[in-house]
């Protein structure tokens, strides 16, 4: 036990003290922060220049003297015919001319409007903006000409908001739960996926290095191979927890810092990134964010956080021990051993894709069974936790996961103790299977 502790301590401290660890731990959240700042600037970027667009409207369809300007377009409606306006464009009085045709058939649903320019094509955003303005004016024009009642027309547009309520608790609207649950679930699943890969391969590489630089034989003349392997797995796991914990503190701090210093917040950016922000006014956005926090508050964090840690530990032990076994079988040639990692990485990647499907249907058969299957459950179950899965499923899944983790550690230890002393042999999966049955 004492020796195991010494090994854990060394494995942990040598990594945590490394400059590369400190840099990665601090710089990653900073990099995220910088990424958001840059993205924010990119999306809030406006091409400074404004386009001067003249409108030629012989049919007086717009019925106004002028279309309201936007940030990037200045409209004007000079009393000139199209040919003169085109000349004006060549003389650089305008950047372009919009020629609105005379509309003969009011029931025409498709109308072609020409835009003439000299050399600066309309960018996509301006095109959309122009189209939108024209569509609005045309709608009003048709309402006028067809002599429709605008009020009645407006009444045709109905907005539905679906309130989902449990029969057991009708006071509570759970409609935001799906979105919030998917967000939280996806986040936790993603963290599991990343940590399994990052720290699993860290264990694998370290086992391989010990074997390649031949310290391992010196080590196991003092300690049991099992102690060495466990010490490494636990030590690296500790490194992982440390890193995730530091990130959990730093990332919110930095994002708050970003908001304070640069005056835009992550939510706004998200909505801009998804393109939804253009249609959403500020009040609505604030309401959504508010709803999000309310919903976050209703989640059972006292259950989610400990369960997440259980799945984190179980999943980590399961995969890290398998990675350790593979590392022990690798020789000096990293590329050759890479093939052995495939049987481990495939379930992890598969689980990640299943998770995406599960987030859409968190109570489907796929979700239930993949969150019990131990190679998937460490990623799938955390992603379902926000959807209140039945208790029996959680318990069963944890029991299966813990059992499988113990089995994986045992199995890996048997492969490991043979593998670390085996040199100069090309190892196949079949070979690994044989090692399990070697005697002491």
């Amino acid at each position, binding site marked *: 036990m004492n020796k195991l502790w010494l090994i854990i301590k060394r494995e942990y401290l040598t990594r945590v003290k490394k400059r590369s660890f400190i840099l990665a731990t601090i710089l990653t959240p900073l990099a995220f922060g910088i990424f958001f700042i840059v993205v924010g600037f990119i999306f809030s970027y406006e091409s400074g220049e404004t386009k001067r667009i003249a409108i030629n409207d012989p049919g007086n369809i717009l019925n106004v003297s002028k279309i309201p300007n936007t940030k990037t377009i200045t409209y004007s409606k000079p009393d000139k015919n199209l040919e003169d306006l085109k000349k004006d464009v060549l003389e650089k009085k305008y950047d372009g001319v919009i020629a609105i045709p005379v509309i003969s058939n009011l029931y025409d649903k498709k109308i072609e409007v020409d835009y003439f320019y000299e050399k600066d094509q309309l960018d996509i955003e301006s095109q959309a903006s122009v189209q939108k303005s024209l569509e609005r004016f045309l709608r009003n024009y048709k309402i006028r000409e067809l002599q429709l009642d605008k009020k009645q027309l407006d009444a045709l547009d109905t907005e539905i908001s679906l309130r989902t309520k449990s029969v057991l608790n009708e006071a509570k609207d759970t409609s935001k739960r799906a979105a919030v649950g998917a967000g939280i679930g996806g986040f936790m699943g993603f963290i599991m996926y990343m940590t399994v890969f990052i720290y699993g391969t860290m264990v694998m590489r370290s086992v391989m290095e010990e074997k390649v630089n031949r310290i391992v034989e*010196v080590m196991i*003349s*003092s300690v*049991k191979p099992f102690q060495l392997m466990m010490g490494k797995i636990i030590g690296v796991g500790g490194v992982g927890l440390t890193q995730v914990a530091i990130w959990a503190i730093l990332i919110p701090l930095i994002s708050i810092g970003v908001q304070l210093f640069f005056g835009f917040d992550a939510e706004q950016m998200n909505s801009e990134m998804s393109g939804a922000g253009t249609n959403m006014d500020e009040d609505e956005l604030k309401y959504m964010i508010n709803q999000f926090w309310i919903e976050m508050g209703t989640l059972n964090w006292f259950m989610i956080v400990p369960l997440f840690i259980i799945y984190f530990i179980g999943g980590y032990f399961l995969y890290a021990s398998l990675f350790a076994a593979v590392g022990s079988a690798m020789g000096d040639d990293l590329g050759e051993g890479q093939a052995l990692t495939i049987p481990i990485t495939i379930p992890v990647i598969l689980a990640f894709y299943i998770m995406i499907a599960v987030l859409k249907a968190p109570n489907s058969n796929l979700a239930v069974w993949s969150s019990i299957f131990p190679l998937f459950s460490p990623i799938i179950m955390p992603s379902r936790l926000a959807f209140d899965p039945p208790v029996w499923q959680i318990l069963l899944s944890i029991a299966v996961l813990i059992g499988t983790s113990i089995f994986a550690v045992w199995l890996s230890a048997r492969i490991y103790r043979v593998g670390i002393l085996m040199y100069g042999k090309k190892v196949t999966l079949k070979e690994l299977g044989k090692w399990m049955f070697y005697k*002491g």
Partner: protein
Amino acid sequence: MNILTLENVRKTYDKHVAVDNVSFNMPKGCVFGMLGPNGAGKTSLIRIITTITRADSGVVLFNGEPLNSNHPSKIGYMPEERGLYKKMKVGDHLLYLARLKGLSKSEANFEIKSWFEKFGIEDWWDKKVEELSKGMQQKIQFISTIVHKPGLLILDEPFSGLDPINTNLIKDEIDELHNNGTSIIFSTHRMEQVEEVCEFIVLINQGKNVLEGSVKDVKNQYKDNLFKLDFDGSFPEELLARTNIISQKENSITVQLQEGEDSNTLLRHLIQHDVHIHSFNEILPTLNEIFIKKVESSNQQNITTPA
């Protein structure tokens, strides 16, 4: 008292028999040579003794008790293929290895410091292992092997990759440890080293021990009754019938005594015949010759009598 007793130790990997019913005794406090060609099973045997692996069958007694988990702390093992954590600081590294051998922090500190003083390398403590030359690393490796004062020291090809200066340094340390009562197993295929330092040997070939005993006994056992004589005068004709002349130069002759003859009789005859003797030496086989002879003959047997 034997520090190590092996009885019918056997170890197989898959279908390959690495150690095949090996038995021998190693007296306490001696320097013991474990000889054998490459791939004979020396390392497999050492791994069993150091509890790295377990024998499939047979008994290994350490100080009279069957091997158990307390014994590794009494054994110092320097493997043939050795290495250190390259990124660790020398001092920390030695502390770590010493503590894994069961030393407390202060004991380990004290021992390592005194070794550093002895080798004059006090300023290495905070250097990283990778900053040291290969020879320096070997020194560190050696210190790590003996820092816990093992009763049994196992050195697998200890001089491979060492320059002559470091070889001598380590040799002197081995001598000193031997004088202080440490039992030492010396595993090698380089015979000249064995003759210099070992008192007892065991010869392993193809997993079996084909020869064991004290170096003196083994040599006597394999001597061919050869004598080399430097003299003035002429070699008496009458003696020619009683000896086989192996080689002859002007004033020097190598003879083999026939069965039943001994060297004193020969000398007496020579003196009677007024031969003026400058030197008279028995030619003992070198371990190298015995080694090659034994290995070849045991390989021969295996070919003629397939298992």
